[in-house]
C-alpha cells in the first residue's frame, strides 16, 4: 500500500508435511522478509500451514492462455499414454 508500489509476491502454503505447497494468494511487501512475515499474518492465522514460500510475481514464467490450444496440443492425440487405451481380455488379472 505504498505510494511507490511495493512488488507483488505470490504465496504458497504447505498445509502439512507430506503435501506439496499450494498457491494461496498474493500480497505486496517492501522486501522478501516482509513478504514472508505478511504471508504468515495474512494467510496462516489459523495454522493453515507448516511451510510458506513467497516468490516475486514478476519472477514467475507463465504460459499464455491465448496460446493454450497450440501449447498443449502435443498431448492431445496421444491417448495411448493412458492405461485405458489398452484392451485387456477378461480373465487376465493384476494388470
Amino acid at each position, binding site marked *: 500500500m505504498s505510494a511507490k*508500489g511495493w512488488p*507483488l509476491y505470490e504465496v504458497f502454503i504447505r498445509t502439512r508435511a507430506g503435501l506439496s505447497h499450494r498457491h494461496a494468494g498474493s500480497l*505486496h511487501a517492501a*522486501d522478501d522478509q516482509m513478504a514472508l512475515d505478511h504471508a504468515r499474518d*495474512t494467510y496462516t492465522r489459523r495454522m493453515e500451514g507448516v511451510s510458506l514460500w513467497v516468490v516475486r510475481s514478476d519472477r514467475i514464467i*507463465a504460459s*499464455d492462455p491465448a496460446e493454450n490450444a497450440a501449447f498443449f496440443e502435443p498431448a492431445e492425440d496421444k491417448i495411448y499414454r493412458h492405461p485405458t487405451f489398452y484392451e485387456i481380455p477378461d480373465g487376465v488379472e493384476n494388470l
Partner: protein
Amino acid sequence: MYTQGLDQQSSEDKKKSARDSGSSEDAAALAAFQKRVEAEEKIEAKDWMPDAYRRTLVRQISQHAHSEIIGMQPEGNWLTRAPSLKRKAILLAKVQDEAGHGLYLYSAAETLGVSREQMVADLLSGKAKYSSIFNYPTLTWADIGAIGWLVDGAAIMNQVPLCRCSYGPYARAMVRVCKEESFHQRQGFEIMLELSRGSEQQKAMAQDALDRWWWPSLMMFGPSDTDSRHSAQSMAWKIKRFSNDELRQKFVDVTVPQAQFLGLRVPDDKLRWNDATEHYEFGEIDWQEFHDVLAGNGPCNRERMAKRRRAHDEGAWVREAAEAYALKQAERQAA
C-alpha cells in the same frame, strides 16, 4: 464482511458502458466467453474477458475490499472496552480477520489490472464506495454482538454464493473469507445470547442493538430487484447467483427464528410467517435512508473517512522506513 456497493456505478463507468454498447469487441469472442461462463468454466486472470465484465468485477471486488477495511472501525471502537480479556482477544482476532479479508480482495482485484495504489487512492478520495452498514455507530457492547450476528450473517448469505463466482481469483478469495466469517457470526450470536440471558439491563441492551441494526442489515443486500441496475448482467455472467431480494428473504427466514430463540423482538410490525409461501413477510425498507447513507450522509460517513485518511497519513513514515530498509538491504547484498 460484505459487498453491496456492487450496484454503485461511477459516472466514469457509465460513460464507458455507453461506449461499449457500440464497441468493436469481437462478437465471436463475446459469444465464446459467454459459452465458457455458461459451462461453469472459471475465468482466470489472463483469459480474455469483455471490458465490461472486467470493470464490473473491479468495481465489485474493490468495493468489497474497501468495506472490509472500513468495517474494522465500528468494531475497533470497542477493542479497548471489551468486557473481558477473552472478549477482547476474540474481537482483536476478528478485526484482524477483516484486515485480512480486505487484503485477499485487493489482491483478487489486482489480478484484473488495477493497482493497489489506485484502489486505495479511490477510497481515500471518496470516489469509491463501501458498504452502507459501516456508517452506523457502535454505541454499546451489544452492538458488537449484533454486528457479528446480523451484519456478518448477512455477509455470509451474500458471500457463500460468491464462492461459485465465474471469476476464479474472486471465488477463491471468497472461499477463504467464508471459512473465517462463520467464527465472526457465532461469536456475535454468543454475545447476544449471554446478554439476553443476563440482567434486565443487559437484555434491554441486546434489544436496543437489534432495534438499531436490523434494518441497516437488511439494506446490506442492496436495492430491491426492481431498482437494481446491474443484477441481470451480473447474473448472466455468473458473478451473482441470486438476486438481492432472494438473498434478503433467505436472511430474514433464517434470522427471525434466531431472534425468537434469544427472546428478542424484531423491530418490524409487519413481520409475520406466511404458511402458504413458507417465508416470512416483512415491512418495506426505508430506501430514503439507504440512499442517504450511500450518498455519504449516514451517521458516521465523515468520521469513517476522516479516520481512514488519518490512518493512511500517519502510516506514511512506516512505509517510508520499510522502503528505506529494503533499499539498504539490497545495496548491501549488491556490494
